[in-house]
């Protein structure tokens, strides 16, 4: 008998599997469920972008590209970042095309974290930061953002969390799952804490194109911040390209130089077909973004009001495609609430606890669904809540 427990890395074994898996397994075996769980767009990739990918395959462009990605795409990315967010990067040295935003995040951690280094992670947030920090033998330090602060990171909380071992601050805004964003003024307060330190910011800007009412501001545009910021972003949410697995890093050259080594040995390069399609997206996709963002915005208003009408208090999300209503006023834990909602009224939403500390009492609801679908879900949720009150 192989003693796998002794063979496998202790670090990996210590990582907790995503708690939400169990819930999704339950969901998959049920009929007639209206799910609001999915964290990806309900649009197919715009046809002109798909067509560019198809054409590249027809032309036999099936080779590896250079490790950092084709220069064409890196140039397109720098032009895009400047056009959309006033960010200035050099295509040759400061951009790495990655396999999704996820790889971009992974590269940043692996290039920076030494054993014992602390990584500050605001929660509730996307589930990967803590486990990746642990894989690098780093120490996640969680800051619980609060409903009273509209789930934003505050300068006071950040200051209190910083120690001499702090290496990295993850800045996950626009936020999954809360929909919170950080305005320029709020980012200025964060930047004021960081300037003069050696702390690097990993700004996860995958939802940057999906903000409502105001444009996303990248912390790298603030004075003195570009030199200490790694931007991780990608094509999945803005262009509805999740399955293409394509993202990128924009960061100072001394950082990308090291990250590129990891990328080179782990992945060689991002998928060529996806890279070619992505050039089309960045050059001719602004209208697609506007169309999809307008559509999400309509659903956002609809669902926020709908949730409030059935008796859930719900902070106004300004980004991504999630709402994070409070479900903790009925004497049930988030997990219990979601499980009973699923089994009794067949609506699936994700308990806030899946996204770390601060998630108890809340649930993530995705509105990357049709209005008809959302309407049906709201009706069922309303019926469920009536049984609780």
């Amino acid at each position: 008998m192989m003693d796998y427990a002794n063979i496998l890395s202790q670090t990996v074994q210590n990582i907790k599997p995503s708690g939400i898996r169990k819930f999704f397994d339950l969901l998959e075996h049920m009929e007639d469920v209206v799910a609001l769980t999915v964290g990806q767009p309900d649009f197919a990739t715009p046809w002109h972008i798909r067509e560019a990918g198809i054409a590249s395959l027809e032309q036999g462009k099936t080779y590896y590209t250079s490790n950092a990605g084709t220069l064409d795409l890196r140039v397109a990315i720098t032009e895009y970042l400047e056009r959309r967010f006033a960010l200035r990067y050099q295509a040759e040295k400061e951009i790495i095309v990655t396999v999704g935003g996820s790889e971009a995040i992974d590269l940043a951690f692996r290039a920076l974290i030494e054993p014992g280094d602390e990584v500050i992670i605001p929660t509730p947030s996307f589930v990967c930061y803590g486990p990746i920090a642990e894989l690098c033998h780093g120490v996640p330090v969680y800051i619980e953002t609060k409903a009273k602060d509209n789930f934003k990171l505050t300068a006071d909380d950040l200051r209190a969390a910083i120690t001499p071992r702090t290496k990295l601050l993850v800045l996950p805004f626009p936020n999954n799952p809360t929909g919170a964003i950080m305005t320029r003024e709020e980012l200025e307060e964060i930047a004021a804490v960081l300037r003069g330190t050696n702390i690097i910011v990993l700004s996860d800007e995958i939802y940057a194109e999906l903000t409502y009412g105001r444009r996303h501001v990248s912390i790298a545009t603030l004075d003195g911040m570009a030199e200490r910021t790694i931007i991780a972003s990608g094509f999945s949410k803005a262009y509805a390209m999740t399955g293409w697995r394509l993202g990128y890093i924009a960061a100072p050259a001394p950082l990308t130089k090291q990250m590129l080594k990891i990328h080179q040995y782990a992945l060689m390069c991002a998928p060529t077909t996806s890279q070619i399609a992505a050039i089309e997206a960045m050059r001719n996709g602004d209208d697609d973004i506007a169309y999809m963002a307008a559509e999400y915005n309509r659903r956002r208003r609809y669902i926020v009001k709908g949730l409030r009408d059935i008796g859930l208090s719900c902070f106004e999300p300004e980004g991504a495609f999630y709402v994070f209503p409070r479900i903790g006023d009925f004497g049930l834990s988030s997990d219990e609430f979601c499980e009973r909602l699923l089994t009794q009224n067949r609506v699936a939403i994700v308990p806030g606890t899946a996204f770390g500390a601060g998630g108890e009492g809340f649930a993530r609801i995705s509105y990357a669904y049709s209005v008809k679908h959302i309407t049906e879900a709201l009706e069922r949720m309303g019926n469920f809540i009536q049984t609780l009150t």
Partner: protein
Amino acid sequence: MDQLLKMLEDDATLTPEQIALMCEKEVGDIRSLIKKYEKEGVILGYKTIIDWDKTDREYVSALIELKVTPQRDRGFDKVAEKIYNYPEVQSLYLMSGSFDLAVFIEGKTMREVAYFVAQKLAPLEYIQATATHFILRKYKDKGVIYGTVEVDERGNII
């Protein structure tokens, strides 16, 4: 408000309440705007898109090209009026190019359609020539792709 029209064009089942929420407007304003559009003939009707091939209904549709001699002062309008009053005619367009009027008609059988062309359209005054093209398959109509049913295949990834 173009946005309202676009939303209704995409989905006529949206209620004024839903539209008001989505556009951050008052329900009353949306209702009166819709009424106004209906009164002015901007909104002409609400229909359902049906894939009849999935039902037992027997039908056949055709595009008929017509060459027409325009009339003094009235152009093609008089002829068009005569044609669009037939209930068999689903759509009628004045075209640029090698013919003048495009007529989309529906009938139960090809014979019925052929009969309609021969007996009703061709003999009309000012019609010079007709060409009948039967529609063999509808791939897309009113922006909707036929023959597919949307299934949510998205993986549950947080």
